[in-house]
């Protein structure tokens, strides 16, 4: 897949065609086509393919279950088949986790025909592209795609995203053809906001205690660490990351301090960088990956110890294993077996 570098929205302006064929629509609004067609090859042969929507569909069972049916109509039920996809505009974005979303799309018509009718010679150089837009920061990720496919994006927690299919050309406006529903990725850490009513208000230290007795020691750690002076702790957090990266410079933009702390504690507890994929935001993961040779458990622990005075013995991972039976019920991992918000080194 040809992946384009991230760009600020200021670099690319967006235009939208108002022609019938190129009217931007959300998948929730599409219901126009009824024609069933076998999906054909991509509009542009030279584009690298993104996995087709149903590429992972399991094959039909080798042995068909069935008995004698009375008619041809009933025999259809013996061989259940997924229908051929109607030629239709689809653009659906789905949340998998705070750091991963799934997008699938398909186009009803060939957008290049309409583009060439509108721009004639100016249409050359456009590529069919997928754009994921953080609607709050306007940050975007663009990649070349086929007219139909699916893709997993690495995202940040607590952000709002929309995906768009359109035509991309460097230094020219993005021509939006289709856009998805908007999703907000879930939080993956406690809110920093206490209730405004006195009856429900709680201090950070007390809330850390509540988290601790609930079995969320990792979050208790983070809350007590951040305290009520988040700016100071955020600076310390960036300093810890700088130390982990052997004092190398990195762009702080779009990296949440709590994500850094989560990553460093996980690394210090013995997790590998690869295990953090899809568990931290894309900007932080990219930085850590770029400096992978400098990133290891020992250095993460040393940085945390020096900056936050966390004792190495507190950074032991505790795993409760799976649930009895087939359930996949979630047991939050405890990275801080020896940690207590009331007795930890960091609160002394």
């Amino acid at each position: 897949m040809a992946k384009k570098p991230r760009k600020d929205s200021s670099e690319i302006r967006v235009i939208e065609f108002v022609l019938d064929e190129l009217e931007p629509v959300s998948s929730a609004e599409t219901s126009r086509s009824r024609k069933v067609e076998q999906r054909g090859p991509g509009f542009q042969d030279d584009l690298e393919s993104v996995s087709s929507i149903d590429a992972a569909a399991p094959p039909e069972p080798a042995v068909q279950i069935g008995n004698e049916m009375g008619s041809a109509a009933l025999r259809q039920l013996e061989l259940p088949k997924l229908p051929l996809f109607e030629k239709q505009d689809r653009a659906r974005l789905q949340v998998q986790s705070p750091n991963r979303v799934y997008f699938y799309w398909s186009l009803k018509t060939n957008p290049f025909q309409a583009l060439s009718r509108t721009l004639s010679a100016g249409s050359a150089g456009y590529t069919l592209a997928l754009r994921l837009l953080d609607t709050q920061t306007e940050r975007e990720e663009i990649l070349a795609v086929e007219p139909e496919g699916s893709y997993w994006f690495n995202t940040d927690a607590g952000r709002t995203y929309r995906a768009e299919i359109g035509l991309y050309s460097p230094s020219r406006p993005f021509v939006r053809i289709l856009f998805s529903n908007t999703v907000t990725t879930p939080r993956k850490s406690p809110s920093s906001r206490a209730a405004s009513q006195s009856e429900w208000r709680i201090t950070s230290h007390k809330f850390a205690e509540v988290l601790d007795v609930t079995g969320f020691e990792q979050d208790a750690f983070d809350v007590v660490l951040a305290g009520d002076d988040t700016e100071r702790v955020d600076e310390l957090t960036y300093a810890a990351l700088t130390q982990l990266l052997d004092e190398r410079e990195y762009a702080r933009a779009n990296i949440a301090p709590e994500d850094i702390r989560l990553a460093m504690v996980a690394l210090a507890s013995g997790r590998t960088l690869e295990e953090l994929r899809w568990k931290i935001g894309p900007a932080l993961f990219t930085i850590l990956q770029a400096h992978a040779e400098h990133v290891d458990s020992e250095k993460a622990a040393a940085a945390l110890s020096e900056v936050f005075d966390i004792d190495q013995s507190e950074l032991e991972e505790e795993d409760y294993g799976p649930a009895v039976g087939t359930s996949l019920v979630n047991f939050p991992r405890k990275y801080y077996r020896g940690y207590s918000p009331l007795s930890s080194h960091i609160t002394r």
Partner: protein
Amino acid sequence: MPIGYFSLILHAHLPFVRHPEYPEFLEEDWLYEAITEVYLPLIFIFQHLHEVGASPRIAMNVSPPLCEMLADPLLQERYTKHLENLLELAQKEQLRTRKEAKQFTEAAKMYVENLSMSLHLWNDRYGRNLVNAFRELQDEGVLEIITCCATHGFLPLISTEESRRAQVQVAVTNYKKHFGRQPRGIWLPECAYEPGVEHLLKAAGIEYFIVDTHAILYGDPRPRFGVHAPVSCDNGVAVFARDVETSRQVWSDVVGYPGHPLYREFYRDIGWDAPIEFVGPHLHADGTRRHLGLKYHRITGKGVPLHAKLPYRPKLARAKAAENAGHFIQERIAQAHKLRKTFEGRPPLVVAPYDAELYGHWWFEGPQFLDFFFRQLHFDQDEIAPATPGDFLDSGLPIQVQQPAGSSWGENGYYMVWLNDKNAWMYPYQHDAERKMTEIANRFADQNSRFKAQGPGSTSNLEAGTLDFELQVRITNQLARELLLAQSSDWAFQIHKGTTVEYAARRFRSHIHRFDLLHEMLNKSYAFKLSESGTTEAVTLTPEELTLLKEIESRDTIFPEIDQRVYGS
């Protein structure tokens, strides 16, 4: 005055598995095993606790598909044969073990006693319909039965508001049919929540729902009492969250009670161990070995290979269950003291939700554990009191308003189990069907209003009451059933988990396929009507199509009361 409250919540759900097209079907055993090992023992224990005055207060979700299966005459008849077959085998086993394997005699005798009691309860006490039993326990004040989504659809992965609403509304209607009242609470399938769901629940008259721990802990603003008090969404629907400590103590494979060496080993079963000529008459006609439910070994120890497991001793296991129950209570008392200290004197509410199938199926002694737990809770101490979420709401205690965070109780806490590389292929098909269903419901509503406008005496072939209209209602309602069945989160779960992948994928394909066949059928009749507009000629199906419709209706019988209008926008 208790120092804390304990709310046990059991989630009883199985996907709708009913195959009238086959005389026997392996996956129907899921229901039969659950009835024998979980539902009948729990019903027996709860009823007995009530009769001795140790009435527990338990919230229990009996999901709509499970209610529909428990009330289904075909499955009731098949289960009766299943149970009789099992009892016959157990009786033979009792004789055999006396002569040949005395180390297993105690277990064999237990099975005969248990199964005999089960058959009595099934046939005589509850008339082969366990919905009666659950309803009775609710009416007696033992259970607070809550509903679930119609087919356990995973709400955050359903694409349209109408389809999400239908999952809730169909469930509530079905609950009223089975239990004769409005449900107070709902078990969100997989505890999967995303902001906004509460509005659907409020519209359906639901007072509360259950979420995983971090839904509240990560909610905004910070919860003053963590998960040990409910919160309320800004529309007034209350939210109760899972306590992690009680989950680990019972459910963890590493530190949980069910892993004790004295408890029964799940994976040694007579269906696999006994000579085929002995168990053959008790297997399905194809003679394939399968779990039969008679198990003679205990866990023995971590890592002990199956062939080295020691004989199961029911009395020792029962004593251990009593001991674990006592320990669990002591842990709750200690937890309540700790939480009260943290909460400056406020009594905590510990919400402990589990899959019901843990109690009896995966952990054979689980029902005994609950029996001992509630007896000891009632007779031996007064620091912890059982309470349901509804009881808590009735207390009138103030509740903090908060926006809970998106979450589920599945692995890693979000939606990964139900949306990943293995099962993502399902969603475009499901979402297409969801969109079409609302289109159809809207078209139908529009058409219906036009017929009504024509008034009595109209000769239109589309008038309500004609064969044509009835057929359209049938097809459209069946479309709704097929969509609901395709949306069961069970299929995506099983495909991800790698268990019964072929069956789960086939079921999903089947319901999408049937939806597609019915959709074509409906569209064909619409096309005909449009071209023949103004005539009085009846539009009907070909005999072949009618046969197909009848066959699909006869297989996917869930929710006979369904009304497709629930999908209208």
